[in-house]
């Protein structure tokens, strides 16, 4: 009896590991070799139908819905919408705003649409925009979007629907700041903020397609259709529910089982398993961002460019693809943080970035040692199962190059505060999460003053190129400058990227009208259900 039971459990576990079966070669919606780039396509489900309710399973819970909070607040686009948007090509276009223009990147004019109201009836006017921007500037609120408003010198309501901004210096990404996922284009009702005070975070009021009903943290966010939405005929849904499901296995079962209608997935394994289910649609895109190892430019041995090159040269991308990305070779081998699908991508980095070459690495290390350097270093990682698996694999790379490396694991919070923020490390694993646009992430990652420049990388050419990119009035000049940044970074290698963070939105077959950014920020006004 006992024997039978254990063989049953073993069989069940094997099946569980296979994600309930289905063969891997068929049923995959994406083209071969490009499984992680399936942008939203025209839906053949016919005309949208109004009504119904959908539940969206997300992988983490939000800190709240105050726009100054630093958090991936999945519900924000539903509650607030965004003044500007990125279109499919990555260009900034007006959305809830009517226009945003500048001749010199110093003075900017934002024009709002007439008749847009918050859910509490307050008009979304120039005063409301100024009120919100001022909150991001308030040091006491420690806004996550501070970097986006920092260039503002002054602002003024020219009339009810026009705001004039004057900046301290030419700043080209200013319009994009109003389009970013956690940017300043998220406008909250000033009346509600004054009414709720410190409870506003729990009672958000925006002008987006859905109104706030209730939020029970770690359980669900319930939203209802906004009957007075600025886009005629939208939204289609009567109700939209967000459910955080942090456990990967559970989240996967929830979508397989139909408990949720959409999920947001972040590991290659779960995305691949979803692709094997013919009834599910996997929507992913190659956003900017990257996973890699920060090589501290301030501390030996990685203050020496030869050692940085040696490090990149030992990375075996085929093995990384197997261990980290469930065999998805196209996810491994990111060069820098800008995706090949970005309008500013510099293809020449592919020729500059060091290819895998262990012999070359051994030579470089020997050369460095011959000059009196000590090539040994400590590699720091957060103490999570996926990072441990990575360290095991990396250990083999180091041994292949006969490199003396000590590996150290730390609690995630300790890793951030004790390692990254103090800068007291030689090499540390790090991910830059998916993003669209270039500013502020590129600036923060590579500029001498960048907030997430963990490598303490400081290069006058890179700084100059970044400054040019963010201040150029001519978009072509700006693009050229962004490309130069990529080229310089590929030459100097402060951050040894090895892959792109995978992420995708998975939908059931009855879900249509998905409108999202490459970083999977979901704008739910056009969502509809055929069930």
């Amino acid at each position, binding site marked *: 009896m006992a024997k039978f039971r254990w063989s049953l459990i073993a069989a069940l576990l094997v099946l569980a590991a296979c994600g309930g079966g289905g063969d891997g070669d068929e049923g995959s919606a994406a083209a071969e070799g490009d499984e992680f780039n399936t942008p939203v396509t025209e839906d053949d489900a016919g005309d949208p139908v109004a009504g119904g309710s959908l539940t969206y399973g997300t992988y983490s819970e939000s800190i709240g819905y105050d726009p100054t909070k*630093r958090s991936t607040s999945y519900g924000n686009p539903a509650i607030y919408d965004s003044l500007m948007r990125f279109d499919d090509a990555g260009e900034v276009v007006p959305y809830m705003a009517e226009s945003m223009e500048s001749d010199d990147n110093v003075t900017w004019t934002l024009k709002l649409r007439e008749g847009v109201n918050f859910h509490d009836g307050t008009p979304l006017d120039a005063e409301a925009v100024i009120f919100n921007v001022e909150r991001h500037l308030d040091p*006491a609120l*420690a806004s*996550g979007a501070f970097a986006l408003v920092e260039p503002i010198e002054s602002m003024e309501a020219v009339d009810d629907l026009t705001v004039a901004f004057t900046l301290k210096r030419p700043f080209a990404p200013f319009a994009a700041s109003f389009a970013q996922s956690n940017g300043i284009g998220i406008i909250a009702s000033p009346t509600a903020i004054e009414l709720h005070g410190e409870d506003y975070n729990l009672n958000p009021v925006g002008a987006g397609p859905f109104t706030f009903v209730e939020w029970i943290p770690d359980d669900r966010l319930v939203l209802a259709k906004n009957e007075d939405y600025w886009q005629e005929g939208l939204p289609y849904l009567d109700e939209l529910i967000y459910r955080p499901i942090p456990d990967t296995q559970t989240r996967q079962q*929830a979508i*397989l089982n139909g408990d949720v209608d959409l999920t947001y997935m972040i590991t290659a394994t779960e995305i691949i398993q979803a692709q094997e289910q013919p009834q599910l649609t996997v929507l992913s895109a190659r956003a900017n961002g990257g996973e890699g190892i920060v090589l501290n430019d301030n501390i030996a041995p990685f203050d020496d460019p030869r050692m940085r090159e040696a490090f990149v040269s030992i990375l075996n991308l085929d093995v990384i693809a197997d261990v980290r990305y469930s065999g998805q070779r196209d996810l491994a081998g990111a060069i820098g943080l800008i995706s090949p699908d970005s309008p500013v991508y510099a293809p020449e980095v592919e020729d500059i970035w060091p290819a895998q070459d262990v012999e070359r690495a051994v030579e470089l290390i020997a050369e460095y040692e011959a000059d009196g350097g000590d090539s040994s270093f400590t590699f720091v990682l957060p103490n999570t199962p996926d990072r441990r698996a990575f360290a095991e694999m990396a250990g083999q790379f180091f041994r292949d190059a006969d490199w003396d490396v000590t590996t150290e694991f730390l*609690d995630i*919070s300790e890793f951030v505060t004790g390692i990254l923020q103090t800068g007291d490390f030689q090499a540390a694993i790090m991910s830059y999460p998916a993003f669209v646009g270039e500013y502020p992430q590129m600036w923060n990652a590579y500029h001498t003053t960048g907030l*997430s420049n963990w490598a303490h990388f400081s290069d006058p050419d890179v700084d100059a190129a970044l400054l040019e990119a963010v201040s150029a009035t001519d978009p072509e000049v700006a693009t050229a400058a962004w490309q130069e940044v990529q080229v310089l970074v590929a030459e100097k290698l402060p951050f040894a990227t090895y892959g792109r963070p995978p992420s995708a939105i998975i939908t059931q077959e009855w879900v249509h009208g998905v409108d999202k950014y490459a970083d999977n920020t979901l704008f739910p006004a056009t969502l509809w259900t055929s069930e």
Partner: protein
Amino acid sequence: MRNVARQVRHLLIVLFIVTVGTFLLLDFLPGDPAAALLGETAQPEQIEAVRDELGLDEPILTRYAKWIGGVVQGDFGRSFRTNQPVLDNLANRVPVSLELMFLAQVFALALAIPLGIYTAYRPGRPFDQITMTLGFGLIAVAPFILALLLILLFAGWLDLLPATGFVRWSDGPLGNLRSLILPTLTLGLSQVAIIYHQLLRSDTIATLQADHVLMAKSKGLPTWHILVRHALRPSSFSLVTLTGVNVGRLIGGSVIVEVIFGIPGIGQMLVQSIYNRDFIVLQGALLFTASAYVIVNMLVDLMYAFLDPRVQHG
């Protein structure tokens, strides 16, 4: 009555030790809550502002005094992250966890009592052996594996129950119970059922040797009558104790079960608040858990008096 006063004094001492202990422990935990809150791109001035706002720079004694002073007045503070009052959070979650633990206890007892009595009545038979093997199998399997197996079976293959998620009682009692079936099975089976069964079985075997049972048998009373009326009550002492002690086990088990099934209870609150370094929330949840544990055990003590009048004299 004197007994109750002693118990309450005992409760207060335990709670004091628990709150001081956890306050110290959390202070030793690496990781700055303000930095955890603001994320990787926080500027030093912003971290300082938030530390100031949250009062993290004050000495630990001051912080403890402020917190306990608030608690005494019914103010458990606000979450570092969401700014939600901790008491609101608890009020949302306590009924959920209580319902889950109650159902798990009821289910475990409903399973263990008949099985325990029956296998005590016929020990060593194949049915007894099968029950025991299955029971030990269940307790050997980690709860999260049992949970995944149950999800796979009932949600995946049979498609009878939701894999995850929780429906509130107010949104429909049927949906509520449906959403709690798998978590209850997991918690009951993996944490308590087998222990109850084993205990009751061995105690009942002992009771069945007792004189009054022999007497009842010789009077020709039916077997079920002897088992239920004469053997169950004297055999259930240890069971009652254990039911109380097991509240601790259930709280521990519910942490895993709630996280896997996405049930918004106290267990999930504990885990989330540790990840988030949301110490005020964690303190509130721990205070509640510790109080619940102590109070249940107090009630168990009092229940002895009911089950066995001799306790009063002792």
